[in-house]
């Protein structure tokens, strides 16, 4: 009987010690989290200048890839080497890529004036490529029999390809400025 009571006492002490240890660990975790939050949570999101420039270059590389893809698709449709639905799908996919590139630039917080200027130039260039791809999609739709107002549709593929080339030149220039290849 005594042995049982001693065992019960011992179990109670062990449980108490366990609870204390758990409470101490919990407290330590809370203090650590508070310290981390105090150290990092009060500062606005920011990047180093190099990181910001690299992010601009990445977005411009994506935009350049999308523009080049659109250029090939328009050229192929003009030569009758792809069907309207295929060209439309290619252009739609590229608009998604351009949307991502634009989103990456608009959500970027430039740490200095130089990065800010690069981002502005990048946004303009991506916007130009987007406009050209949107125009290309309208041209594809019109070519496939879509009933579009004539002022919304480029007169010919040559006009469209020239527009794309100008937009891609601007992208290349902005990319070179951002240290891209």
């Amino acid at each position, binding site marked *: 009987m005594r042995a049982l009571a001693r065992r019960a006492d011992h179990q109670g002490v062990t449980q108490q010690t366990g609870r204390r240890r758990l409470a101490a660990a919990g407290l330590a975790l809370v203090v650590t989290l508070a310290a981390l939050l105090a150290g990092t949570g009060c500062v606005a999101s920011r990047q180093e200048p190099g990181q910001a420039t690299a992010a601009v270059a990445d977005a411009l590389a994506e935009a350049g*890839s999308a523009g080049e*893809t659109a250029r090939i698709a328009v050229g*192929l449709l003009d030569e009758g*080497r792809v069907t309207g639905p*295929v060209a439309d*799908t290619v252009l739609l996919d590229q608009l998604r890529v351009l949307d991502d590139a634009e989103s990456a630039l608009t959500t970027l917080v430039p740490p200095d004036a130089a990065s800010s200027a690069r981002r502005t130039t990048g946004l303009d260039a991506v916007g130009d490529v987007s406009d050209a791809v949107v125009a290309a999609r309208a041209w594809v739709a019109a070519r496939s029999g879509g009933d579009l107002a004539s002022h919304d549709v480029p007169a010919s593929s040559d006009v469209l390809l020239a527009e794309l080339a100008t937009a891609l030149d601007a992208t290349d220039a902005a990319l070179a400025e951002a240290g891209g290849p």
Partner: protein
Amino acid sequence: MKKLLGVALGILTAIGGFVDIGDLVTNAVVGSRFGMSLAWVVVLGVVGIVLFASMSGRVAAVSGRATFEIIRERLGPRAAGANLLASFAINLLTLTAEVGGIALALHLASSVEPRLWIPVAALAVWLVLWRVKFQVMENVAGLLGLLLVGFAIALFQLGPDWGELLRQAVPPSPPGTEHPASYWYYAVALFGAAMTPYEVFFFSSGAVEERWTAKDLGTNRLNVLLGFPLGGLLSLAIAACAAVVLLPAGIEVSSLSQIVLPVAQAGGVLLLAVVILGIVAATFGAALETALSSGYTLAQYLGWSWGKFRRPARAARFHLTMIVALLVAVGILMTSVDPVAVTEMSVVFSAVALPLTYVPILVVANDPAYMGRHVNGRVANALGMVYLVIVVVAAVAAIPLMIATGAGS
């Protein structure tokens, strides 16, 4: 003559069935970014899948039982359970990617939103699984998948500088514009795409479905030794098309629609139509195989009645597993997740799960209790050990490389 035709059909379906959405996307992405500098990984992957598929086919033919049944018996429920969990999860991810691939290919052909095609594609897969005989299903999907040979035709029509392509491939090294970590990340992804685990589970269970015996070992060897390497050549043609047309234009492949542009440039609308049909067939065939693999692995582990040679009512849980797997795949895809991103994830996680799939096969193929005189020879074991090291290295490196490179971006 009948036997010869059977062998030829087996080889052709092995070629046509080799390429799936993982191979398509990964090879095109790699070709557009790294040229042919990762061609060696395709060769490495093809040798690996030839080695292990022939091993698992031999196990099934000699023992009359599928690999997973023996793995559970030989390694015990715990080890086999871990294997099952990993394989089933990867399988589900691959099935999702394949159904997404069918929808993307149909979107490309029709310009109709892929989310409208996803339920249609899944329903068609289920109907075939429910109604069509195993052999018919395998042969039709495999033969139509052969249309992907359009990539090889396109490559020849593009008239590339073969010397330049060879220079990119040998000696293999990352291009100056790419970070070495990205190069190795895609090497692992490409390896995972070539050695996707579902292929061996499907292959060994298919051997049981077709009632192979030890007499069929020669046919098995021929199918694998000729069919898979020729399928690997198709993979290389896809990468080469991207390297010839997309790489010089600075285009990074991020969608299925970009992958077919070199084909359209080379062969116009006709070749493009052939290749799109080939993509639908290849992804559809792979969706059938991955859905079946989901049913096979679970049913074989739990000892349920399985197989398409049985009427669905006599293998109800096997068929129910496939239906649930298809519904999960549709559910994932309907969240608007990008199927190409799912594909990229599936090939990398396939690489992570490789040891769990291939180590047990090597163990079983060396067990005389199951294999009798058909146990692995010295060459197969030496190669198996080399590949064991490679798959472990790839599995260990996959996740750190994925994190370090931001999934190769």
